[in-house]
């Protein structure tokens, strides 16, 4: 990366739930990512700055932060595309508790993942023959459209339904449940449909599409949730699940 000779004005959240934005001057470079900026501050100006990253190539989903008002994966966000007048404001993800500075506490995110029965439940054992999955079946196509989630939490932070209803499971969690509902190998779908049809489940989604708007993997959790609404409604009418 070569320096362009000018500077960025970067405001970073410092503290926990209560804190303040502190401003730093960071050299502007070509093709600089937001994560590069945060790392530069931590290595050159303030080693006590806390943030989270791992892969740096958009696979692990650990570096998501709020950048100039919107949730983004910082390792794949080029500064020149989001900076306004050479300014960046970076905070922790919204709708989650703050551990410190830019690191959000993801525990509630993954607890809700468990509540939505996001764990694959095999219907066969290792002694059975491997079940063949038809790649062109409707169920597999539906699962494939939703399967590339990297658990970054961006959709959860962008979701107004989560903001207004903290008991709502959330888009990533329901998107994951939808992939399993469409997995012919899974053996726990009645329990899963029951879990996502309860209070705070898929019917609490208002279809605002912020999850789709911000998803860095270009997934559409709103469509997955709409699928769950249809599937649970059918199961309820048939008496397979209870309200």
């Amino acid at each position, binding site marked *: 990366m070569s320096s362009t000779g000018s500077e960025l004005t970067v405001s970073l959240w410092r503290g926990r739930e209560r804190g303040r934005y502190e401003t730093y001057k960071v050299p502007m470079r070509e093709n600089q990512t937001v994560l590069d900026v945060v790392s530069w501050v931590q290595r050159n100006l303030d080693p006590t700055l806390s943030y989270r990253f791992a892969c740096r190539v958009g696979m692990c989903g650990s570096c998501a932060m709020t950048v100039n008002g919107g949730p983004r994966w910082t390792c794949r966000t080029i500064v020149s595309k989001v900076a306004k007048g050479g300014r960046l404001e970076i905070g922790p993800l919204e709708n989650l508790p703050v551990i410190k500075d830019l690191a959000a506490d993801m525990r509630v995110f993954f607890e809700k993942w468990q509540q939505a029965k996001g764990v694959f439940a095999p219907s066969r054992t290792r002694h059975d023959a491997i079940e063949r999955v038809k790649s062109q079946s409707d169920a597999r196509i539906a699962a494939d459209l939703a399967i590339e989630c990297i658990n970054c939490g961006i959709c959860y932070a962008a979701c107004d339904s989560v903001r*207004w*209803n903290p008991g709502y499971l959330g888009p990533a969690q329901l998107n994951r449940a939808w992939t399993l509902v469409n997995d012919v190998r899974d053996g726990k779908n009645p329990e899963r449909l029951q879990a996502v*049809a*309860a*209070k705070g*489940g898929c*019917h*609490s989604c208002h279809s605002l599409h912020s999850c789709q708007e911000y998803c860095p993997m270009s997934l559409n959790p709103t469509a997955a949730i709409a699928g769950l*609404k249809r599937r*649970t*409604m059918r199961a*309820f*009418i048939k008496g397979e*699940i209870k*309200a």
Partner: protein
Amino acid sequence: MNVRLYVWQRLTAAIMVPMIMVHLAVIFYASRHGLTAADILSRTRGSAAWALFYGTFVLAASSHASIGIRSILTEWSLLEDRAAGVSAIGFGLLLGALGLGAVAAVVWP
């Protein structure tokens, strides 16, 4: 919201959509033909069909609105779930009573 309330809200919406079309058609008919209040009442009084039509519409609308109000109260007010549910049922009953009263006023012989 859970799946039962969701089903009821969609069901009542599905009932209301064609009824709204009929209601709009009635309004256009009455205004284009210059019907007076007396003309309208002469058609509706004693009519079981209009009583059934608007009675069903009132029940669907009050149920539908009540479920929606419940969601708004639980998300945007400080009310607990139970208080929001009771308030929404109260609102639905009030809406139903006012609506059925209005229907009775035009169909009662």
